[in-house]
């Protein structure tokens, strides 16, 4: 069953056509990949889905509900969350505080918000920090973490938020290559253990081939190919796009 249905979405910035008639389906409970050369419009598509800008035409549905006219916070409250390519964390707060602020406010009543964080909240925060390998750093000002660590923290924050669908923009960019296997493993576990549907933009072919059930490939803002990892791997158009033979 599909959870996100993007159909015929186009988006241009002035003269630049960032997305042209893109149609993509994200299956519930699965891991979907989105690849494409730099500037092919992947981040733009993410932004259109989560409501950062209006789309020119087409429709975007989340669990059957049209969301292409909704605003960022409204969409986020449906349980559709994203991480940023350039990470966004609260640099002045420490890691635990970052985690606590990520508690799913959408599930709280006003009364709940006027309570202090409980011991369980902290435990959950620390467990998740442990899960991504930041336990040792939990009391450090998060702005002092390296880019890769901030990426991990943002991932942990997203998990803390208990999303239904998580859109990850290049989760492995900037991560120490020796840690990437660990991260792949965690992404898979987030999917299988927490039941979070993942939609991942990735440049690293090995990573995405390893994880995704279905992969979509964008080039020049258009959908070039889609299929399983084998199909994509053997698709001549994808190979050409990546080798720059436009």
């Amino acid at each position, binding site marked *: 069953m599909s959870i996100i249905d993007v159909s015929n979405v186009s988006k241009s910035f002035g003269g630049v056509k960032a997305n042209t008639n893109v149609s993509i389906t994200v299956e519930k409970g699965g891991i979907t990949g989105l690849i494409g050369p730099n500037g092919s419009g992947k981040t733009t598509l993410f932004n259109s889905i989560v409501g950062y800008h209006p789309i020119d035409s087409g429709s975007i549905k989340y669990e059957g509900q049209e969301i292409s006219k909704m605003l960022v916070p409204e969409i986020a409250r449906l349980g559709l*969350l994203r991480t940023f390519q350039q990470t966004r964390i*609260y640099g002045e707060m420490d890691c635990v505080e970052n985690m606590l*602020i990520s508690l799913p406010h959408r599930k709280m009543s006003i009364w709940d918000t006027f309570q202090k964080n409980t011991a369980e909240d902290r435990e959950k925060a620390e467990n998740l920090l442990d899960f991504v390998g930041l336990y040792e750093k939990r009391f450090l000002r998060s702005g002092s973490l390296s880019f890769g660590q901030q990426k991990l923290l943002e991932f942990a924050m997203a998990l803390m938020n208990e999303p239904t669908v998580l859109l990850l923009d290049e989760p492995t960019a900037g991560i120490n290559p*020796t840690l990437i296997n660990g991260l792949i493993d965690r992404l898979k576990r987030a999917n299988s253990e927490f039941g979070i549907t993942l939609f991942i933009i990735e440049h690293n072919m090995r990573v995405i081939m390893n994880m995704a059930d279905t992969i979509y490939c964008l080039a020049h803002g258009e959908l070039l190919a889609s299929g399983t990892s084998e199909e994509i791997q053997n698709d001549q158009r994808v190979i050409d796009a990546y080798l720059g033979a436009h």
Partner: protein
Amino acid sequence: MAINKNALYTILLIVIAAAPFVFPNYGVQLATLWLFIIVAMTWDMTGGQMGYNSLGNIFFYGTGMYVAAVIAIGLVYDVGEYTSAFGGGRYDFTDAQYFTGFVLGVIGAGIFCAISAFIIGYVTFGLRGPYFAIGTLGVAIAAGELVSNWDWVGGGQGITLPVYPGNLDDGKVFIYFAFAITGVVLFIFLNYLYKTRFGAAMNAIRDDEEKAEAMGIHTMRYKLISWALSAFFIGVAGGISAFQIISFEPLESAYQTINLGIFMVVCVLLGGKGTLWGPIIGAILFQLFKEVTWNYFLGWQWVALGALIIVTVVYFQDGLMGYLRTVRPEWFGQTVEEKSDDAAGEAAR
């Protein structure tokens, strides 16, 4: 540590309770100091803790004054007749009428202001950065002008409340304690609020509202509620002020955009915004500065105040608490580590 803190608070409470009796000649100044503390703390709720720098919080002060006055008078007489007979006919208030009017007026002022914060905030909180500041300033200016054209509440002439029944000095003490109790309640409330999830969400909105939105935090809801809460307390303070000043008019004393409206911001900046104690310390410093310049600078006090604003804003914006934070981070419970590497990540692999 916990015992120390309790001891500290106890001493503070004793000082607060004793102050008007120890310094009977400074009753008005002490009450004003409380007013400054209250408005500074409430300004900091949205400005310091949430990053929404309002220039129009004075709206709630002025509105609080008028609402309290209208309630207190309206309980006994017809407000329109009362104001139009300004200086003319005699209107008496019994003791019971005065105190009922005071209590209901002050509380009513708070509630009215909280509700109006919801309504105004619904529009202005869509605005960010300078537009929010200008928009709220606009609301305050417009309100002052409209009220001064509204004859029912006395127009530009203003309105006069009954005086305290009994001896004048008792009246001053009464007002002092009204302010002091409001201030202490506000402090206790904020001390709790800033430790809750709500407080954390306020900080998240300040530090990166877009991220907060992207995480599904109800940013609008938090902005509205915290502004309404702060408006409640300003409204209460305005209501008490009305009974302190007794006779007031809209532009200079109620909606005093460029006096109290800006002073509250300067107090917060002086002490350090986004902290619990900063606004309090700032209000005390500011009040001292103001008293000194008012007494010794004759006519130039306003120039000195303008200069103080500029110097604070341009050169000393983090305030005293911010300064302490940079030199003594450990006092604020921050862990600092010189070097950070991927060791933690390594360990988890």
